[in-house]
């Protein structure tokens, strides 16, 4: 005899003990005696570490004053950072011209907003502004020498400003160049492939310090007399090529994850190699590579500090130089904590943006 169910079971809410804050805590923090002990111990460790940091950085710290003698508390002496803030931010960029850097920041922020945010819809103009107009404007703005702006030699650039110049130029160059190298490495043309593989393996096989050293010390020896590039330009070229090699491998990983059928479908619709790449393959490959791309960007951003060894005064070098000032001896901790905090803010920002972007581009199965 057949057994037939005639009534449908209604949908019911899940049991209360599994939802809400109490449910979550019971499930995750206090489910067994061992977990209760671990939770209590973790909370204690977190409390003691944080309270020490907070009392050092805020409660017992000194913020007001002008000189070292104003630091009477037991905590950090932020007066040191405050007193040298201008130099930390701009290096030896002439004080009366620092507004030019600020204008550059503002224009850059507008550009970033247009490119990255959802609110600005016309991405074509955003890209033209950010990648074609903005770099040229920045060159004239920062370097000067025309339009009535005094010339500021790159040896006077420094501090956070120099760090940002190094990082953003390297990032802007590394991504497109990395894509080209990745495509070249997967090309069916043997010469192109060989060149790309050779470049990537050569650059990836040496430390960045070596590349910078080569660019700054060795290169001038090979160039004919009278021909000389700016030291900053040489460092920029070195860093860009270095990170392009890394980027190429990241992008290649993404390209390899795209099923062959995507290219075939694009081809069968009459799209040629470049259109298929630009419209179908690369958007997907770059999307899945976002975590690794941002990872490379963050690594690159922090690696800019290595220019210290070729005598460029980036944020870390300037702060470090400040700690040897005899009026501020013993301020090394404050200096390094400050540098760490600045780097952390930028890297954390990049990380959050990449998470937001991943969610936005997710088209798989979220309804």
């Amino acid at each position: 005899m057949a057994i037939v169910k005639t009534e449908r079971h209604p949908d019911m809410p899940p049991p209360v003990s599994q939802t809400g804050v109490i449910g979550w805590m019971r499930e995750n923090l206090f489910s067994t005696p061992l977990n209760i002990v671990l939770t209590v111990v973790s909370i204690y460790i977190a409390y003691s570490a944080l309270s020490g940091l907070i009392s050092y950085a805020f409660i017992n710290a000194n913020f007001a004053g002008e000189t070292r003698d104003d630091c009477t508390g037991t905590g950090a002496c932020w007066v040191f950072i405050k007193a040298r803030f201008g130099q930390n931010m701009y290096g030896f960029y002439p004080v009366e011209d620092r507004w030019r850097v600020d204008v550059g920041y503002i224009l850059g922020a507008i550009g970033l907003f247009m490119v990255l945010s959802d609110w600005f819809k016309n991405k074509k103009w955003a890209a033209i502004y950010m990648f074609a107009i903005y770099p040229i404007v920045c060159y004239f703005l920062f370097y000067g020498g025309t339009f009535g702006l005094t010339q500021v030699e790159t040896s006077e650039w420094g501090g956070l400003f120099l760090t940002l110049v190094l990082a953003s130029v390297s990032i802007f160059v590394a991504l497109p160049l990395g894509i080209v190298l990745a495509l070249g490495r997967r090309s069916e043309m043997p010469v192109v492939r060989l060149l790309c593989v050779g470049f990537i393996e050569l650059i990836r096989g040496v430390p960045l310090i070596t590349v910078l050293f080569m660019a700054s010390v060795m290169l001038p020896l090979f160039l004919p007399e009278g021909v000389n590039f700016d030291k900053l330009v040489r460092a920029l070229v070195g860093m860009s090529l270095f990170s392009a090699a890394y980027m190429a491998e990241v992008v290649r990983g993404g390209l390899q994850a795209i099923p062959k059928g995507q290219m075939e479908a694009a081809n069968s619709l009459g799209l040629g190699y470049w259109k298929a790449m630009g419209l179908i393959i690369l958007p997907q490959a770059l999307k899945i590579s976002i975590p690794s791309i941002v990872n490379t960007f963050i690594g690159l951003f922090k690696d800019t500090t290595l220019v210290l060894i070729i005598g460029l005064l980036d944020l870390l070098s300037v702060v470090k130089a400040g700690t040897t000032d005899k009026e501020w001896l013993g301020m090394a901790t404050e200096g390094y904590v400050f540098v760490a905090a600045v780097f952390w803010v930028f890297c954390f920002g990049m990380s959050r943006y990449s998470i937001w972007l991943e969610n936005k581009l997710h088209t798989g199965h979220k309804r």
Partner: protein
Amino acid sequence: MSEAANTQVVEDVAIQLIGMHKWYGEFHVLKDINLSVERGEKIVVCGPSGSGKSTMIRCINRLEEHQQGQIIVDGIELTNDVKKIDEIRREVGMVFQHFNLFPHLTVLENCTLAPIWVRKTPKEEAEEIAMKFLERVKIPEQALKYPGQLSGGQQQRVAIARSLCMNPRIMLFDEPTSALDPEMISEVLDTMISLAEEGMTMICVTHEMGFAKTVADRVLFMDAGEIIEQAPPQEFFDNPQSDRTKLFLSQILHNG
């Protein structure tokens, strides 16, 4: 034969494979393939897996390269000339076993991409055409969703609509129902049948023998890289000639 009769012959023939061979490295996949498909003709290709069915139809739009012999599609011979390859691909639509929809684009964008970028159709017009074909495959309400949000049968119908948007004269189907759940096969087959009834030239690699019986003008049986037998469906199923065909039919019809 007079000049006029000659052109007549060329115009009536959609696809011609003459003495075509293909190797994968040392492996001889396709051996001396000779096939002529008339305009409006529907051909079903069947055979055991690894027999070269898919490879053969993938040669027709140059997803695979043949090494010997001639392939003439729509009067254009396939050579290394990229322009000619593109020209042929524009006229030949293809539907894949695994749909191969573009997951980062909506259903509508999947359908308008090629018309906009290859045929230079204005966006509004391309969208109008796309909606027309999405209605034909009965899923206009899914236009703004992403492929990942659709069922397999719906995805395959989108893939058919995407091909049709390029207004092809020939359609190639590479096992279009093999990756589908059983209850979704008929919705895709129905779409293909209605396409066949409109007079589209079609080559289908499929194991759906019911479809072959209703639609095909000719059924091809391939084994080990050769076309073993070709006949109208009635004759093919009722009175197969070669032993290999008989064996194959007994195996699949037994299961079906």
